[in-house]
């Protein structure tokens, strides 16, 4: 098993980050070409805890290295990830856990992401992923599969940060514009 972990501080409030997180893979993100679709499967608020639970299906398209393709066979182009997320507005915490649905008998990838406020203006993103090759055979091959996926995680983490920074920036601009529009409408109505 290999473990990948990563931490990023965003200079945005937790409210802004947790809202923009829902549009992380939208058109504002120009670094997430590998995520081609995000579908919501279920969503409900727990009446006792107030926690918002959401299930999503994430469709990725990312070419696997040739040697893995030849080893595992099949069409590796499209892959699916199941994600369950929990927003607790009282403790201001977003937790997202995800696992791979595709090739799950060969490799198991479990990721956990947490967003927490560091201050009124800063939010911390903590990411960890456990990668375990399950296929039988030589340990060396298992290690290579785990290393390759771990490297892929590192590359995607850099892109993830850059892309999300852009989404946060755009969200703030659009929000300010909308607020201004509403204020102008208010002025017109009052005059």
């Amino acid at each position, binding site marked *: 098993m290999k473990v990948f972990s990563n931490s990023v501080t965003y200079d945005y409030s937790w*409210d802004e980050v947790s809202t923009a997180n829902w549009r992380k893979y939208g058109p504002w993100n120009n670094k997430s070409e590998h*995520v081609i679709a995000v579908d919501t499967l279920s969503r409900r*608020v727990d009446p006792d*805890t107030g926690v918002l639970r959401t299930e999503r299906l994430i469709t990725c398209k990312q070419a696997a290295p040739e040697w893995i393709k030849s080893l595992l066979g099949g069409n590796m182009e499209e892959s699916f990830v199941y994600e369950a997320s929990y927003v607790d507005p009282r403790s201001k915490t977003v937790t997202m*856990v995800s696992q791979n649905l595709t090739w*799950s008998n060969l490799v198991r990838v479990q990721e956990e992401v947490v967003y927490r406020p560091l201050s009124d203006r800063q939010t911390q993103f903590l990411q960890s992923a456990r990668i375990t090759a399950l296929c039988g055979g030589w340990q060396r091959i298992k290690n290579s599969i785990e290393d390759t996926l771990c490297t892929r995680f590192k590359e995607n983490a850099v892109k993830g940060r850059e892309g999300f920074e852009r989404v946060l920036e755009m969200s703030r601009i659009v929000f300010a514009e909308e607020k201004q529009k509403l204020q102008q409408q208010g002025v017109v109505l009052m005059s």
Partner: protein
Amino acid sequence: MSASLAPECNEVKERYDTCFLKWYSEKYLRGAEKDNKECADLFNEYQKCLGVALKSRGIDKLLDEAREDNKDNDSRRNKF
């Protein structure tokens, strides 16, 4: 907003996502409302469309297994 894996569901998905985001930022985060009633009809319409696509591609079965795996997380995260 991001696309749906089923292009035929894109239009209703977009409308639902927009509705949800507005509710999330303006009501849910402010503690005003626990239920997302205003988006419920759009969500049901979206699910009806998506459900067909998931079934025809066999993804529904993969999801059932993943949900089973995720039960521990559910019990840990939902009750603080």
